[in-house]
Structure formats: C-alpha cells, structure tokens
C-alpha cells in the first residue's frame, strides 16, 4: 500500500538523484550479497564510485559495451545475483534492445536497467544522447516494467523495492537534483499512479521533470477557476488503468505531460488505456516525433514546449473538447 505526502512548496532538492542511487545500493549491499552494480564506462557519471570502492568484487565496469553488459547482467541474475545496470538512456535501451528483449525479458531473468539523462536534461550532449524514445523503445517488450521516478524520495523508495522484485525493470533517471515533490518516508506502489492534487475539470497525468510543471499549471488554472487533478504516472508500463478510468470519469478529459516522444510514450499509453476503458478527450504535452538537439535545459524546455504554460493551454483545449 502506498502512503505518500505531497510537499506544499516545490523546490530543487539538495541531494542529487545519483547520490541517492549509490547510497541506497551501498546500504542494501551491506546486508545482501546478491546486489551488484554494472556500468558501461560511466561510473563517474552515474555516481557509483563509492560503491566500486566499497564493494570491488561486486562492481563491474563493462567498458563501452552496453549490449554485452545487458547479457552479462542477465547471466549474473541466472546465477542468483541482483544486478543494477546503468548507462545513458539511449545506449541503455535502443542500443541493446535485442539483448533486453531476448537475454533478459524473454528468458525471464532479473535485471534492473537505469537509463540516465532523459530527454532534454541531456542538454549539451545533444541529439545523439537525448532519449525521447527510451521508454517507447521498450514499451513493446512483454512483461517489462517502465518507471520514471519523480524525485529523490520516490527514487529511493523504488531502489529499495527493486532489491526483492523479480523481472526486468527500466528506470528513467534524472541524475542530478530534481524538484522535490514528496515528503521523506513516502511510499508508493509500482503500477499505481500517485494522486498529487485532486480536481474535477481536467486530469493531468505527468511524469519526471513534467510533474513540477503540471503542479504549477494546476495552481495557475485554479486561480482561473479551473479545477485540475494531477496524477503522477511514474509507472508507464503497466499503466494504472484503474486510476485513469476513475479520473476520466471524474474530470471528463486528460492532459498528458512527458519529457519524451508522445509516440510510444506516456501520451500513447494513457490514450490507449482510456480508449479501451473510458474514452475522453486527451491532449498531449511532450515531444512530438522530433529528434533532440544541443542547448541548455531551459532552452530545450522552451524549444519543445515542455512548460507549465503549455500544460495550462492543453488543459483548456481538453476541457473545450468535452462533449
């Protein structure tokens, strides 16, 4: 059962997500000899250097071999280990899709894949490193679980859950400091959306960096007399059909907000669920089938309309489309 408290003020956190990643894994590894970490020449970037120092026998730098790394992790899990694997999002997914599909998922092995710098937060690394398609690439892998934690509290909870979960999990991770949304100690349920604020006119399903934007948009809409609910759909697959159905019924329309291609992304997943269970108008805020590019995160957010203003406009469009 989930038990979370939403903060009243939304500010950048003090702690980087990658620090939470390393610290939590070190804590788990102390009591669990199955926990191991693999990286593909990005140990410095993913923040797991302290883990490599503390547990050299359970820390594997695979070099620049993402495909091999996924296969090695799958094999290690067949021997009983619990591997956490990291690379940048595009290389952790589209580069090794076949290995994730066959060696890990089809073989029903036990692998956690962390893909960092989602979408526009790849910033100066540009279009080659800017995954708007990482979740989409994996969406059609049967039985995989796709997650995008919102802040350090939700991420720490997730890493702890993954200690004893079984299966293939992809975690889309903002490595640096996120906007804090949840109070420390909050707990969640994989596959269940977290309701951040209730509303009756429109429901915004948001993930990752777009959660804070959705909350800002909801506040602004409230000032204009529009009541917007915000659902944090941090699990993209399996999507929370029940929460979507419930809020489609309650609000009568949806806005999705993601730092990802809406094709194959959260927008598609929400729309497919609603089409099946409770059809209502859906407006999608996200990247509309475009490639990435270089720039500051702020520039890119504007360039792809990943803003509270765009969510607000989309909410009004969705409401106008209600029958």
């Amino acid at each position, binding site marked *: 059962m989930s038990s979370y408290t939403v903060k009243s003020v939304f500010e950048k956190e003090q702690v980087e997500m990658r620090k939470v990643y390393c610290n939590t894994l070190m804590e788990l590894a102390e009591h669990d000899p199955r926990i191991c970490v693999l990286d593909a020449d990005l140990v410095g970037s993913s923040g797991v250097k302290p883990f490599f120092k503390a547990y050299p026998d359970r820390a594997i730098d695979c070099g620049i071999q993402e495909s091999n790394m996924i296969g090695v992790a799958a*094999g290690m899990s067949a021997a009983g280990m619990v591997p956490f694997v990291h690379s940048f999002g595009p290389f952790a997914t589209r580069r090794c899709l076949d290995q994730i599909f*066959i060696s890990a998922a089809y073989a029903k092995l036990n692998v956690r894949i962390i893909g960092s710098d989602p979408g526009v937060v790849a910033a100066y690394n540009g279009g080659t490193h800017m995954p708007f398609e990482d979740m989409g690439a994996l969406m059609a892998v049967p039985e995989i679980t796709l997650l995008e934690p919102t802040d350090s509290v939700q991420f720490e909870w997730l890493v702890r859950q993954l200690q004893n979960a079984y299966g293939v999990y992809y975690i889309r991770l903002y490595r640096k400091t996120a906007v804090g949304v949840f109070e420390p100690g909050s707990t969640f349920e994989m596959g269940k959306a977290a309701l951040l604020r209730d509303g009756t006119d429109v429901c915004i399903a948001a993930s990752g960096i777009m959660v804070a934007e959705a909350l800002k948009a909801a506040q602004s809409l409230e000032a204009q007399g529009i009541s917007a609910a915000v659902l944090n759909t941090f699990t993209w697959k399996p999507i929370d059909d029940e929460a979507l159905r419930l809020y489609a019924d309650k609000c009568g329309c949806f806005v999705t907000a993601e730092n990802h291609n809406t094709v194959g992304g959260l927008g598609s997943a929400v729309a497919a669920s609603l089409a099946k269970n409770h059809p209502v108008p859906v407006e999608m805020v996200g990247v509309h089938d475009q490639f990435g590019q270089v720039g500051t995160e702020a520039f890119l957010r504007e360039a792809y309309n990943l803003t509270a203003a765009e969510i607000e406009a989309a909410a009004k469009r969705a409401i106008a489309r209600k029958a």
Partner: protein
Amino acid sequence: MEKNKEIRVFAEEIRVEALKEFAHLGFGHVGGAMSIIETLAVLYGGEMRIDPKNPQWAERDKFVLSKGHAGPALYATLALKGYFPKEELLTLNQGGTILPSHCDRLKTPGVDMTTGSLGQGASTACGLALGDRMMGRDSRTYLMLGDGECNEGQVWEAAMFAAHYKLDNLTAFVDLNKQQLDGSTDDVMYMGDMVDKFKAFGWHVQKVDGHNVDAVKEAVEAAKAEKGKPSVIILDTVKGHGCLLAEGMFPCHHIAFTAEQIAPSIEHAEQVLAQARQA
C-alpha cells in the same frame, strides 16, 4: 575396454536421436546440430558436474548453447541423460512443445540459458561464470559458439570482457564447421584465423578435431586446469557430420527432406552406433 568408448557410444546415440527428431519434423538446422555432438557427449558424458534429477541445482556446471538453433542436438543429449522422457523428442517444434527450435531455459529441463539471437549467449555465459564466482561457487560455465556466429560484434565484446575479468571458470567452444546459412564462412564474412583472434583477446586457446572425443575430452580437462584466463577450444568440425544427407549438401545449415530422403542417414547412423558399441 577401449578408452572413452562410453562417450563415443553416447555421441552416436545422440546423433541417432537427433536425426529422428529432424526426421519426424521433415526439416531443421541439421548441419550445425550434427557438428557439435561429440562435444556434447564429452560434456554431458562426464566432464560436466550435473544432476539430471535436479536441473536447477545451483552448484551445477552450466552449458550455454549460444548457437541456439542447434537445440535439437542438446535435446537428444538431455533426454538420453534422463532430464525428460525420450518420447518428448518427437514433439520438436510442435505447438505446446517443451522443445522449441531455439533453446529456452524456461521450457526445457536442463537447458541453462535462452538463446537464438546470435552472439547473446557469449555475454550471458560470461554473466553466469561471473555470477557463480561472486556467489562463491566453483561451478564452470561452458559456452558453444558457432563460427558464423562469430560475425557478431557481441561475441568479441564478451571475449574482451571474459579476459579482462579473468573468467577462468569459463570454457568456450567455437564450432568451426566452416559454413553459415549463405555459404562458406570464408565467402560470406572472412574472419581470419580463429586461434590467433582469441589469443589476441587474451584467451587460452586450443584447437582440436571436434569429432575426436579423446581430443575434445583432453582439451576440456586442460582448459579446467588453466588459471587466470578464460579458455576456448576451437573445434575443427564438418557441418552435418555423421548425417549422410546433410554432409552431401552445401550449404546444409537448414535443410528440408522427405522421410525417404532422410531414412538412409538414420540407418547409417544406427550402424555407426552399433559398431561403436561393439568396438
């Protein structure tokens, strides 16, 4: 008794049963299944630490058939070892079977890894070897690669990885049968000398006649004794070995046939088996 006679007999038993699987179906990856049979007989005929009554025994040695299309040869081996009833062999590739065209760890008792997308078994075998080492087990992992499979870049990523992490509990084989689907390996994608390649990657390398069980067994034992580096045994083989029909066709990677066409090959293999038993 002649040295390694039991293994020789076991190999011919595997060949007869594998041919019967293919005969029942009327097609299959016959060539590459026939060429690895002596090695399977050596491994499952004494070299591997296994318990057919307990296929999930954590301390067992593991076998990854990375050229997963040769599954039918492994299935015959496992059935003869008692992992499942021999009758199952005739269900090869039928809907609902436990014996799919390519190996599946979830479907077949005794199959240690799911394979079929070439190159991937190299990495999962490294993972098994490394995982067993981290778990403090002295188990070994055996990996069977096809020569055509070595076109895949992933094989060489794994080769680099295994040497770097000194996986001396890993023994790989390359079934050098010199053919891939489109023709001879030299014509399709020339790979140079496999011995030199693995040496350059830091492996302990042996090359033996892959149809000589004495030579294969000796090489497997030498590999076990090697410390600090992974071992590879290059198996000089003939694609389709021991199946008259396949040996007479080029290429023989995947062939289709009538019951009449395959019958003489089965008969021949049965005669070879009878001779092996009498030797």
